């Protein structure tokens, strides 16, 4: 996996986890995307019943086809952009630090990191029907670093990850006492 452009792995460092939001949290975007795809079809039936002259005009029909095509292309592009922003939100846990990569928009990204030995407090939560069913939730980290609070959003099995981070932090503290 090419992560060199995001973080520089140290010689003694090993990547333990690369976390992303649970895939089920992207499902609402898929539903919205499918609903948006149906809009031109509804408009088409409206036009054929109310504005038959426009649909039969040899000049306006190509225009309508081009507008519909541009609309569908835009929808697909926005879907891909939404997916990219969703998928590029990642949390990289190594045996030395935790890196929070946040893709805010297509041309905006923030990267924050904290050494594991600086973690002071960690908690996890699962709230809601779907998070309980699909076992995903948030992990909250209090740190002594420049960024005092980290939140890992909507990750799978947050309880198990919390325990993993505690073990890694304990191990890392031995090298920094």
């Amino acid at each position, binding site marked *: 996996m090419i992560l060199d452009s*995001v973080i520089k792995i140290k010689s003694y460092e090993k990547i333990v986890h690369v976390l992303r939001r649970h895939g089920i949290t992207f499902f609402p975007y898929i539903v919205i995307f499918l609903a948006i795809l149906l809009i031109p079809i509804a408009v088409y039936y409206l036009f054929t019943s109310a504005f038959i002259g426009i649909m039969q005009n040899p000049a306006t029909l190509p*225009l309508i086809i081009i507008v519909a*095509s*541009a609309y569908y292309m835009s929808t697909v*592009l926005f879907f891909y*952009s939404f997916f990219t922003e969703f998928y590029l939100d990642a949390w990289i846990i190594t045996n030395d630090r935790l890196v929070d990569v946040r893709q805010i928009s*297509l041309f905006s990204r923030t990267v924050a990191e904290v050494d594991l030995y600086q973690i002071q407090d960690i908690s996890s939560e699962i709230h809601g029907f779907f998070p309980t069913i699909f076992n995903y939730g948030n992990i909250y980290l209090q740190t002594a670093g420049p960024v005092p609070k980290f939140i890992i959003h909507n990750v799978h099995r947050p309880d198990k990850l919390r325990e993993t981070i505690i073990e890694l932090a304990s191990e890392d503290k031995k090298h920094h006492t």
Partner: protein
Amino acid sequence: MFTIPLYVILFIYLAYLIIVAGFTYVNFSHLFHSGAITIVSFSVTVLVGFLAVIIAYVSFVSLIGVDWQQPLTLWNNEWISNALNSSNF
């Protein structure tokens, strides 16, 4: 009356397709350079490419036989006068 030939709309559409292709490339480049090329992201990329090709193909087939030299009326003053004459005051 203000008219333009229909092929002007086609050129605008083609320019828009180039912009869409550019942004699609930017998206894929982000995924690639961030080390996020996985089965999931690759599948979504293939799906997006497939949908774009389908849309372009259907548009192309629908536009076969169109006379692109014909004029497209963008504005005609008679629209206003017809609308005023036909309204019931």
